[in-house]
């Protein structure tokens, strides 16, 4: 029987987690001036990110590390654990789509060298997926704070919406803080505001155009990893200024992926004949 390869693991994930939930149906042309900011801080709304971004996917897999972001430290841990496949929820190579960098800067060059010298293969896996196992990963963070199921019928790539009672922004923030490895939340709005409905932005490594989630009449709290401050933050400030009871809670784009990484590792572990580990990837921010 041929050895299980990293690509076989990826094929299993694609099959069992289901197809990607495209945020925009049909053709997604790049936004008109998508490249105006060098480095691609904005990207086309329909761009997907999943796939092998570094290393040889055809090699036999010795073990898998699942992490919120494949930092250099996590890669060292993978090597120490004897795992040659790393699954990173967040971008890890310098741009949101992990595209090849023509002239890698020193820390990135060092990272790429470490990956090559140690025969690692790194799979990016962040696109929300539609099969039940895929949905469970996308919904890992809300579930971690006790929210059962999102409103049905919504495209999970556009966001998840939950109706709640008896919670305030502050009480939900405390639950989220307990579920995420971060000390640096940012809030726009009033912590004492009762929350009727909250939305989770599921693709916040591409954080433009999140205002429509919060514009929904049944949503008054938006939870996102990060936003474009001059767009979504500006929208929330104006919504509050005209008397709408709305708030925005930013929890960190890397930290936000931690429950998804934990859930994916737990799902994958019994399905593979090799060890599967979850490695935390704390963002290491302080709030001063």
């Amino acid at each position: 029987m041929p050895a299980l390869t990293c690509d076989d693991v990826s094929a299993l994930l694609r099959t069992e987690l289901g197809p990607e939930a495209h945020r925009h149906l049909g053709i997604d042309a790049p936004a008109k001036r998508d490249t105006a900011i060098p480095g691609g801080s904005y990207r086309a709304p329909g761009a997907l990110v999943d796939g092998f971004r570094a290393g040889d996917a055809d090699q036999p897999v010795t073990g898998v590390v699942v992490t919120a972001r494949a930092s250099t430290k996590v890669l060292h841990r993978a090597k120490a654990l004897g795992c040659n496949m790393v699954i990173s929820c967040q971008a890890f190579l310098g741009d949101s789509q992990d595209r090849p960098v023509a002239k890698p800067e020193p820390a990135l060059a060092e990272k790429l060298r470490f990956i090559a010298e140690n025969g690692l293969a790194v799979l990016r896996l962040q696109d929300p997926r539609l099969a039940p196992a895929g949905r469970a990963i996308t919904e890992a963070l809300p579930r971690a704070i006790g929210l059962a199921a999102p409103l049905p019928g919504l495209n999970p790539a556009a966001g998840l919406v939950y109706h709640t009672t008896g919670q305030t922004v502050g009480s939900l923030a405390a639950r989220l803080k307990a579920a995420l490895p971060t000390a640096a939340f940012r809030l726009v709005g009033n912590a004492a505001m009762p929350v009727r409905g909250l939305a989770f932005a599921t693709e916040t490594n591409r954080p433009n155009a999140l205002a429509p989630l919060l514009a929904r009449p049944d949503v008054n709290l938006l939870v996102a990893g990060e936003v474009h401050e001059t767009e979504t933050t500006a929208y929330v400030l104006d919504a509050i200024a005209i008397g709408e009871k709305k708030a925005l809670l930013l929890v960190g784009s890397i930290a936000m992926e931690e429950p998804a990484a934990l859930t994916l590792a737990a799902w994958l572990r019994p399905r593979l004949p090799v060890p599967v580990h979850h490695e935390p990837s704390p963002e290491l921010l302080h709030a001063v």
Partner: protein
Amino acid sequence: MPSSLVDRRTLIFGTLAAGLLPAGALMAQTGQLTAREVFRQIKAATGQPWDPNPTDDRIIFGDRNVPVTGIATCFLATIEVLRKARAAGLNYIVPHEASFYERYDDFAESAVADDDPVLIAKQRFLTENGMVIQRLHSHAHSRPGDAIMLGLIARLGWTGQRIEDLVGMPQVRLAPAPAREVALHVKAALGRRTLRVFGDLDRTISTVSISAGMPGENAHIRQLESGTDAVLMGEVREPEVLGYAQDMADSRRITVFLSGHTNEDAGMGVIADWLKTVFPALPVQWLPIVDPYTTPA
């Protein structure tokens, strides 16, 4: 257009557009400068070739023929800032950033619905108060020395500490101090209610590379690799920039102060000071923004 429908003002502007009257004659019937003329004079006073792209320095909203009662500069033309402008009798608003929740104020590209209640309320407020919005982004940065950067460094009190520039990102040398102390200074100087910091707060730092706003991850990574002890940034894309700092910290020490996109706010104070010299007869005021963020307990 049939000649019987051409009113006097239309005729005047048509004549002026053809270059038949001196620009100084471009006045509304009240004797005040029109928004169109104020914008023309701003463009001329920059002494730069004017290119509205890629960041759309143009009249974004409002009637170009409205008489200008005064100029307000700001980082963001939030409704709160617009209310302050109205109270101060200023109706020509010059924000640094976009006003309608899309980075170029491009309604065709915007994800916000045309009938969004917040968008409608803002447009109504502007219209009812005869306000005009003219964005000034690229041409604020391309003022001599970069007005936005000058304002930020002055606000930090670091103007005299500049040592060199790295492609538009100045560096300063401060008296050696723990990162926490510098962070508290940055927080107070920029009027922030919360400041995020990456790295060891007890580490002693001296040199700091500074960027304003969101120049993009390529620029941010150049900044991180510039050899300074610390970097001060505005808004970053976290997986790319904070992620790079994490990777870098695996072998080298670095401190990152994330001071938010609003770190460009003070630069619009520098723009207000300049516009006072362009329009000595008009009230001109910088309307600062309050830090949008707090840290929930």
